[in-house]
């Protein structure tokens, strides 16, 4: 058994009430990611130990899901809505233009300085605002929705995000 460090003890305290073999793995992963922004190797180990699972099982399961991440998040995450109502409003053009501004190749990529990442998002039923993107700060759990975008507006937003000048609009949602 690895040495109990302060870091491990803190992770363990987040999940101490969860029981093994009780359908609690997703919850444990969510709690830890909510706290640290990602799932470190150490965290996966502690979760495995606590829930009496093999670390390989924990990683194998966690890596199945898009929302779990295994590296610290970028300072800003742009989540691009891939849904149908947005596609009908040239969201593909918005995606390509934002990628170009960030000088990134495809969704899922991040800038070398870790300032920005752009990821694929799913429609959550605010389609009256199509086309839309979410601008997120993972660590602070802040999420801004910017809707009824034009490509030009998306480019301007992407430029302010790149320059670190983006100011939240207050259309935040809980997360």
């Amino acid at each position, binding site marked *: 058994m690895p040495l109990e460090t302060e870091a491990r003890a803190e992770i363990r305290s987040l999940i101490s009430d969860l029981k093994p073999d009780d359908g609690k793995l997703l919850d444990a992963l969510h709690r830890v990611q909510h706290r640290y922004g990602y799932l470190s190797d150490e965290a996966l180990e502690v979760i495995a130990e606590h829930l009496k699972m093999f670390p390989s099982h924990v990683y194998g399961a966690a890596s199945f899901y898009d929302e779990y991440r295994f590296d610290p998040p970028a300072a800003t995450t742009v989540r691009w809505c891939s849904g*149908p109502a947005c596609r009908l409003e*040239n969201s*593909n053009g*918005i995606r*390509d233009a934002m990628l170009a501004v960030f000088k990134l190749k495809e969704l899922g990529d991040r800038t070398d300085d870790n300032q920005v990442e752009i990821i694929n998002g799913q429609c959550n039923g*605010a389609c009256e605002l199509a086309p839309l993107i979410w601008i997120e700060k993972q660590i602070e759990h802040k999420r801004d929705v910017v809707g009824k975008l*034009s490509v030009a507006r998306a*480019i301007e937003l992407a430029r302010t995000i790149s320059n670190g000048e983006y100011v939240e609009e207050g259309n935040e*949602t809980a997360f």
Partner: protein
Amino acid sequence: MANMLRKETKLHSEILNIENSYTSIKENADLAYREWCNPIRPRIDVAIDTSSMANGALEIKRELIKLVTERNAALDVSQNHGYGMQWLNPLVTITWPDGTSIVYGPVKLGNITDIIDEAIDRSGAALHLGIGLLSGEHSSLINLREHPFFKNEPDERRLIKRIGFTNPDSIEHYIGTRGWSSFARILYRGMTPDDVRQELLDGGLGGRGGGGFPAGMKWNFLAGASDSEHYMVCNADEGDPGAWVNRVILEGDPHLLIEGMAIAAYATGSQRGFIYIRDEYPLGVERVKNAIKQAEEKGLLGNNILGSQFSFQLEVVRGAGSYVCGEETGLLSSIQGQRGQPRIRPPFPAQAGVFMKPSNVNNVETFSHVPLVLQNGSSWYKEYGTEAMRGTRLFSFSGDIPYTGFMELPFGTPMKDVLESCGNINPGEKLVAIQSGGPLGSLVPASALPTLTLENASFVPYDAMMGSGGIVWVSDRTHLIILNEYISDFVEEESCGRCTTCHGGNQRMTEIFRRIMAGNGRREDEFNLKMIDDTLQHSNCVHGQFSPKPMRNLLQHFRHEYDALVVDRKDSTLTIPAMTQFRVTNTADRRIEDAVAICPVNAFKGEVGNRSIDDEACIRCGACTEIAPNAVVREARADISQSII
């Protein structure tokens, strides 16, 4: 004999206890709800739901509270759920002591003073934002039941009757509107689990998440399962993009779902339940958790519910962004902490579900109808709908229409009437297709509109399905293949990876669509697409099996568009990047330098006054034409217009 008598008396007193416990809970709740409807001083409710929040509702609420406090106004501020007209969000409702209740929208920060003034003195300061009445009368406003958007809804809403009328975070409001009464009555009337299942079978309640399988029949399977440890599972994964009907219940009336699950658990001998909610619905997670906690506090969930012998533990599992976890066996695997891969059947969930114990999975809406059927009887439930699909269901509408939102509609409602209430297709555009049933659904041609109704049978002749509530109206503004490429890519990304047919097939399909969109369509593409279709039929689950439908629909119903792309290499919509080009038509236009500045790839060449676009560099995003519509055009690309055949 004496023994039996004692048992009878004990049973009798137990039943009396149950009734008494419920009655005392109900008396308090009735009082609380009466005060909500006729408050001592005016109250302003901000609609807080995912769509409202995206439109800035939280900020509106914060500012309202701030201003009310600053002005020391004799007003209260609370929350409800949006009524369904999402294009008018954010919505605000004012309720006065006399019971008049008016909905306003869209309420922007600049309107807050008007709203507060209106709430205080009813002088009409916010009348310009008035949409309609929830209750009471007004000289110039209609009742929302008469709003054209809800023209096709039943006179009274059934499933979503509380939406807008309650605070979803209040179990008192739920109980004060006859909530938890079906469940309590089952216990104190001593209805047996068999009776409950029979009532549902009589009503013909069909599943709302998949194939419409009768809920009562599924419950019979679980009730009859050998093992005594049973699980009741709610599928709240709602993954179909463009469908958000389950969300309305999770966020708008979570107590209804929970009561439905408690009844289902009682009817099937389940001791434990899970509600699996998609990660994209954080507010749904919060509200459902809160509703569970409140029910536990009232003794309506947990051990010995209302003092009876029946116990039921319910908890929420939050998903983590996987579409295929909505497939019921994938869902079971995911709850167990495994990869969310659909299982191989048999065994079926009723034999081996969560933790390999007998389980039953139903959709959010299926459960939510249960208390209503039991409260009002099966014949009431059958008043709406068709022979094959009984009752009403929630639908969400989006796409190329002016009015995006949700409605509760009877099965069988004519689609042309529905389109009318959505405000018809956007001005200047023509309906081309109806995207129904999400990525595993269909593309129905506009020519079907006269005969299409909200019943699956009317979709079938088009090799199509109605699906689980999401309807996207598609106009001639965008090329359909953009949706096909999106869908096949989605299915591939979300494939669990078990079957090569499924992930490999959809990958190939996407590649073919992309090549066609790049202007390199081939004659044999159709043959290859059909081969992929055949292969996909051998996949393990519906994810793979249904995925070729939208592609098949493209070939069946949109032949002309497909041939134009592949044979003539023409895109009349000018929305496919590689088949179009951008060209400067007026170098002297005053907005041209703005277009140059916005271009994300510096594609403009030449000096000021002599700008042109470098076609190699241009990524066809369209920003320049938005900025300088009189200086840059998007047109068919000149060098690919020759046919291959």
